């Protein structure tokens, strides 16, 4: 979409230019009857990259993954892997393996047989199968459960087996469809770290699908944010957080304050707040992170406004404070734990922290 062209993604371009492209998604669209699920998706995934496709439910992220795996056919567009056409191959010929959301372990086979499956159907010699299965199970710390049926092990263990079953085939590309969503919060955080270090260790390209923005931030080299079937922004986690391209991205990733106003003769005016800017004249929308707002300290050059404290919420190391300015503009600021004692305060921010973003278009 247009936002990708108008805003420079410097980090992204240098990052992917340095490495060779493994998977190239070109103008892929998918419709189910009258429903447009994906429209005009183009994305280059670099060799060895950990790319996360992030989006709400219904954004089309799983469909995109299934198109890469070969379980769905794109309505238009094509896929290239290592400069070969991928989308015309059946799933069983693709050098792509998937870790399914519900793991999809074969219930009639033991853990060991599940992991050996891909090598068996490829007719690898028995000695090689035995060795590689052993290695894969060791890597995910499941050797002790090799002879058990999937129904006899826990969800977290099934997840590891599913991972071993995919990795043992040494795919060029591993697809992960919300593999952590069934795990409880603690195990989930632990697996995020393990998965990331495993990916570095084996050097396989990961395409990870999730709806959890925190998970995406922690694990990914780059995030591709999907919204209603279109890519909203593709960038590194830091860039997507610090320089969101659109209002939707700014709101989806972390908390933000959206300031709507206009620029006239080098001054941005949003409600009662104004600051100097180099942006051209016209209507403007800014994203201002709560941590960039603070109680006035009289710093020269800061944009400032008087406000009344509405609510304060304790968030551990920090508090989130909602304040109301003149004309009813409500801002959220992150303060050190302890919050604000006064009822009426001045709040301020550095003009450079107000990031201009594009309006997110309404789509059906």
């Amino acid at each position, binding site marked *: 979409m247009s936002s990708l062209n108008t805003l420079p993604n410097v980090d992204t371009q240098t990052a992917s230019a340095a490495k060779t492209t493994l998977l190239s998604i070109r103008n892929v669209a998918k419709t189910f009857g009258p429903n447009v699920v994906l429209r005009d998706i183009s994305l280059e995934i670099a060799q060895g990259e950990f790319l996360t496709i992030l989006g709400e439910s219904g954004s089309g992220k799983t469909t995109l993954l299934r198109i890469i*795996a*070969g*379980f769905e056919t794109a309505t238009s567009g094509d896929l290239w892997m290592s400069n070969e056409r991928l989308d015309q191959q*059946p*799933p*069983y*010929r693709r050098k*792509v*393996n*998937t870790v*399914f959301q*519900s793991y*999809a*372990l*074969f*219930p*009639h086979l033991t853990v060991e047989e599940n992991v050996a*499956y*891909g090598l*068996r*159907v*490829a007719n690898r010699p028995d000695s090689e199968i035995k060795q590689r299965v052993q290695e894969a199970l060791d890597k995910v710390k499941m050797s002790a459960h090799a002879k058990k*049926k999937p*129904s006899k092990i826990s969800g977290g263990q099934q997840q590891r087996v599913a991972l071993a*079953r*995919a990795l043992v*085939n040494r795919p060029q590309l591993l697809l992960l469809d919300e593999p952590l969503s069934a795990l409880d919060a603690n195990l989930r955080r632990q697996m995020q770290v393990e998965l990331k270090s495993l990916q570095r260790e084996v050097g396989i390209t990961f395409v990870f699908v999730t709806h959890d923005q925190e998970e995406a931030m922690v694990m990914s080299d780059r995030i591709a944010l999907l919204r209603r079937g279109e890519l909203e922004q593709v960038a590194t986690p830091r860039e997507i957080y610090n320089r969101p391209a659109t209002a939707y991205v700014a709101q989806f990733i972390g908390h933000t304050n959206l300031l709507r106003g206009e620029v006239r003769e080098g001054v941005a005016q949003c409600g009662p707040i104004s600051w100097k800017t180099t942006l051209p004249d016209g209507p403007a929308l800014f994203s201002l992170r709560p941590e960039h707002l603070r109680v006035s300290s009289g710093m020269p050059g800061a944009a400032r406004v008087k406000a009344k404290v509405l609510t304060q919420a304790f968030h551990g190391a920090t508090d989130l404070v909602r304040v109301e300015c003149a004309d009813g503009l409500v801002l959220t600021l992150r303060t050190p734990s302890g919050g604000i004692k006064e009822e009426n305060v001045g709040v301020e921010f550095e003009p450079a922290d107000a990031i201009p973003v594009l309006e997110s278009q309404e789509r059906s």
Partner: protein
Amino acid sequence: MFSRAYRTMVTVPPLAWVAVFLLVPYALMFCYSFWSVSAAQTIVHSWNFANYQELLEKQVYWQTLLRSMWIAARVMLFSLLLGYPLAYFLSFYAGKRKDVLYQMVIIPLWVSYLVRAYAWKTILGSDGVLNTLLQYLHLTKHPLEFLLYSPFAVVLTLTHIYTPFTILPIYASLEHIPRNLVEASHDLGASPAQTFWKVIFPLSIPGVVAGATFAFVLSLGDFLAPLLLGGPGGIMISNIVVSLFGAAYNWPLGAAISLGMLVIVVSLLFISERLEKKWSHS
């Protein structure tokens, strides 16, 4: 949750039904099988094993039992060979036509057994549809005699009648296979054929066992198909039981055979249940 009176009201009638029409007749049969018939054709209520001894000694009973099992085994085999592909197609490839095709499997079950058996008689008879057609096409000069009044006719008819009974449980077990297992198999590099033999078929075995049991047990006890279409060579064990209870008026011997059959069938059901459990993974 429910009152005692309500529970009694709901449970007693079916239990009474089972007791009066199932348990009591079985008990009576059990008793009869140890009694005998006098020369004057009256039942002698003296307890002995003479009937069972006769069963073990006379070859005709053994041969008929073996023939019945052989016919039942063939019916089972052909029903599975016909039923499995159809169930597989229904479950995996029928798409929107699934419901209609499923109904078409069920509908023949609404037609009376007798009508279907007679239909085969008209088809297979020496002036029947098939022979007329074969002669009209000059493929044969005379009617083929083996078509009717033979074990062939019995196997054909029973296969036709019992195939839906194999399709339904196989279809049910195929429907229970999570489709993501099929995707996972393809994803791991297995071709459609490998996926069938390594994932789909093993997971459908409980349905195959259930269907095989239906076809075998129902055919083993059948007496109408052999009576109408079997001829002398197609006599099955139930025909002997029928004649012993009827024309021959030897209820005790008939009861002994029936009990023997009951033991065989119950053992089969027991084994089949074990097999189904062994192969189910839910």
